[in-house]
């Protein structure tokens, strides 16, 4: 993109086009002949990784939009229908939802790399500011995307974030009304967020073009921070940077696949598997992990307007970085003091992220204020002062000189995963209003781990428990009789599922006479609801409507604590839901402990948050007859029904893990080949 191209096509057709539109020359000069510093390390592959992630998000997003219904009454179920009914819908949805997290992991690494190596300094100020704009657009896009599934966190996230604008003096309330299109967050809000969520990625793509353009005018920075002087300092973009980026990307995809196929809900919040309820705020409301540091800054300021201003300033201050840090030496490699402060700053950001996930009380508030102070001090005090007083070490004469002191690949890669892992751990620390309830014991589930499979006998027994006990009060609106015969499920035959469906009566109609009538259930029907509507369910159950059980095994969780939740990402622990369900069903106690006053109409359960549960103990020994000789004990019933509910919540679990194994093996082979190809290519350059 800089200057006229030297590219001369030979093919007459290409020649003809090139004379009229020099697009091949543009591509050639930008992505083939373009000189890149030869000393770039793997931190520089994240630009390419980010372009890839933007592509993944746009492609999967366009496909999801083909199946999604942006309506307050239908959105939640349409997302579930994607996961359950659309071919590979679960894959596309997990690609997209985890893709957002991967996008942010990559962008944070990309930003910290720019910060460390001084990539914002002259002549790259505009390049850097365009990057800050992309980041802001990403945050807006990510937020609006999170609203679309219309779960509890979607709804309340939308409420809280839009209310930020109410802090603006005089115009605040009017702006919020404009954002909502109503008196509160509702269907108009969802519709406009859907529209904007579809639009913004293309705006991002446009700014990315400007970002790359600016990059190709100024040229890439490099770890030494000295500009290329001779041809020996650079290598052509293709094949050298291309193959290096491809190898870096393949490693990143492996990391991404781990989340998609094995821990797809690790970074999400269980509350978002509860449909939006405008009448109940979740006990502990947190944004997605990538906003947590800014959320912590917001909460640590006890004044509404000042808090919002601080939060936005924390992002905007980045745009002024080129002028706040006026040191001539770019790379922190040669600025020993600034380097130490940089790592302290990284720690401050991670600390803020950790605090953002904690309830705003006690020591967390104090710590939040200290770290907020440190965050701003780094930009407004430390960097300006350091750039004036610090005496940098001598920088190498040229990039070619710098290559002699090159560090190993392994160390860089290890660092990539360490930072990615650290960023990921923020999310695991979501409290589920544990209220001092003991942690549910972890059971051995057949479906846990990378090779996990459901035990068909257990699912059939669990279905029996559900049908004979749970279904008296609880609906399962997302599960259909046809699902009972789906592969990876309880293993009923189609004939058995049809017979089970025929046992129920379904209201259908109207018929030719305009009257509703009852007919026997069909395999396409969903499990019947015990109550005609929520009010009836509420009235019949002492004011607390029994929740739908379809997603119960993913909609409940509990805190695993630090550092356990980090290990959970590696051990693929995804069984909080079934553990919790089993614990609740076995956790009833006839007499509450001394000093606990049980409210009227409640029952004591040691695992239920707050302990006072409206549901009476539903299970007793020998209540349900098992035909396969399995012990008829409460513990067994609870285990079986928890497994059944896990299947109901994640019916494609077996397919996901099976395909996951194939993909992981393929990607390992591919990454290995790319590594050796990269070595072969770079052998010429050394």
């Amino acid at each position, binding site marked *: 993109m800089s200057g006229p191209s030297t590219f001369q096509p030979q093919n007459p057709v290409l020649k003809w086009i090139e004379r009229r539109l020099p697009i091949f020359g543009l591509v050639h000069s930008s992505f083939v002949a373009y000189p890149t510093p030869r000393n770039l390390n793997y931190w520089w592959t994240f630009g390419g990784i980010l372009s890839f992630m933007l592509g993944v998000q746009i*492609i999967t997003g366009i*496909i999801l939009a*083909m*199946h999604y219904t942006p309506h307050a009454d239908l959105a939640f179920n349409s997302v579930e*229908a994607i996961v*359950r*009914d*659309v*071919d*590979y*819908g679960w*894959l*596309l949805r997990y690609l997209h939802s985890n893709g957002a997290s991967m996008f942010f992991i990559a962008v944070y690494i990309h930003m910290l790399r720019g910060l460390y190596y001084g990539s914002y300094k002259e002549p790259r100020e505009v390049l850097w500011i365009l990057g800050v704009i992309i980041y802001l657009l990403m945050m807006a896009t990510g937020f609006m995307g999170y609203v679309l599934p219309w779960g509890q966190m979607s709804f309340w996230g939308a409420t809280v974030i839009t209310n930020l604008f109410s802090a603006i003096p005089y115009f605040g309330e009017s702006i919020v009304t404009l954002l909502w299109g109503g008196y509160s967050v509702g269907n108009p809000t969802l519709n406009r967020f859907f529209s904007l969520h579809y639009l913004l990625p293309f705006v991002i793509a446009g700014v990315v073009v400007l970002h790359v353009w600016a990059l190709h005018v100024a040229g890439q920075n490099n770890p030494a921070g000295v500009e290329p002087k001779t041809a020996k300092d650079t290598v052509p973009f293709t094949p050298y940077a291309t193959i290096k980026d491809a190898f870096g990307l393949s490693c990143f995809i492996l990391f991404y696949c781990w989340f998609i196929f094995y821990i797809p809900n690790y970074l999400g919040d269980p509350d978002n598997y509860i449909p939006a309820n405008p009448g109940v705020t979740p006990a502990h409301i947190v944004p997605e992990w990538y906003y947590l540091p800014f959320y912590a800054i917001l909460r640590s300021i006890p004044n509404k307007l000042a808090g919002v201003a601080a939060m936005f300033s924390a992002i905007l201050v980045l745009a002024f970085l080129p002028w706040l840090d006026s040191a001539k030496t770019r790379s922190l490699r040669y600025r020993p003091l600034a380097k130490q402060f940089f790592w302290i700053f990284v720690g401050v950001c991670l600390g803020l992220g950790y605090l953002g996930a904690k309830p705003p009380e006690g020591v967390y508030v104090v710590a939040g204020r200290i770290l907020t102070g440190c965050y701003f001090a780094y930009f407004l005090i430390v960097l300006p002062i350091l750039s004036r007083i610090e005496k940098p070490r001598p920088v190498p004469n040229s990039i070619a000189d710098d290559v002699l002191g090159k560090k190993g690949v392994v160390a860089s890669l290890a660092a990539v995963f360490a930072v990615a892992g650290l960023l990921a751990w923020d999310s695991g620390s979501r409290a589920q209003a544990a209220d001092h309830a003991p942690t549910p014991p972890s059971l051995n589930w057949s479906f846990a781990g990378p090779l996990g499979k459901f035990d068909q006998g257990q699912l059939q027994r669990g279905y029996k428990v559900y049908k004979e006990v749970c279904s008296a009060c609880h609906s399962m609106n997302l599960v*259909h009789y*046809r699902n009972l015969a*789906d592969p990876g499920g309880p293993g009923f035959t189609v004939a058995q599922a049809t017979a089970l469906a025929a046992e129920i009566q379904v209201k259908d109609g109207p018929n*030719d006479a305009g009257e509703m009538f009852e007919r026997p259930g*069909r*395999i*396409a029907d969903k499990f019947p609801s015990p109550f005609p509507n929520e009010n009836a369910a509420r009235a019949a159950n002492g004011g607390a409507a029994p929740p739908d059980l379809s997603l119960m095994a993913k909609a409940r969780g509990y805190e695993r604590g630090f550092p356990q939740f980090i290990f959970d990402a590696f051990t693929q622990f995804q069984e909080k839901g079934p553990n919790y369900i089993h614990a609740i069903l076995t956790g009833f106690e006839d007499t509450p402990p001394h000093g606990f006053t049980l409210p009227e109409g409640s029952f004591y359960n040691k695992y239920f948050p707050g302990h006072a549960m409206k549901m009476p103990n539903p299970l007793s020994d020998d209540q349900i007859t098992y035909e396969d000789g399995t012990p008829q004990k409460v513990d067994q019933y609870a285990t079986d029904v928890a497994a059944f509910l896990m299947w109901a919540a994640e019916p494609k679990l077996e397919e996901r893990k099976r395909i996951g194994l194939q993909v992981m093996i*393929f990607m390992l*082979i*591919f990454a290995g*080949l*790319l590594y*050796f*190809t990269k070595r*072969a290519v770079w052998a010429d350059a050394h």
Partner: protein
Amino acid sequence: MTTSSSAGHSRRDFLFVATGAVAAVGAAAVAWPLVAQLNPDASTVAAGAPIEVDLSPIADGQDIKVFWRGKPIYIMHRTAKQIKEAQSVNVSSLPDPQPDSARVKEGHDQWLVVIGICTHLGCIPIAHEGSYDGFFCPCHGSQYDSSGRIRQGPAPLNLAIPPYAFVSDSKIKIG
């Protein structure tokens, strides 16, 4: 020296080709789910299960339209005149030759069950209209006879017969 460097070259070429081939396989594998998601989803498939239709309310000379898999299905109770017309046509003179016996179920001559979608470009023909006592498509003027066979106009084929069977004399199961 020459031999070892050419051996090195062929090893490198093999590596490049192998990497490229694996990349191509990966790209194809990625394309698969992106295309497969366009298929009808499981709920659509389940909703396309067979339906039963009671024929008893349909009087001689009347027709009804029911929907199966999103398609309109005409069930026409043919009059004796319509049956006679359908059976007496010279089959070989038709654009899409088919005897009436191949269009109805044996012993149920009075019942014509056809998918009401014009084989030209998918419009819905109007029953009991046109010059052949059958169907007339208002979009481009195709005319079908009382057996649902194309007689005149741009449509190339007879109206399609859905899979169906008589459960009893007055009830059919479509699908």
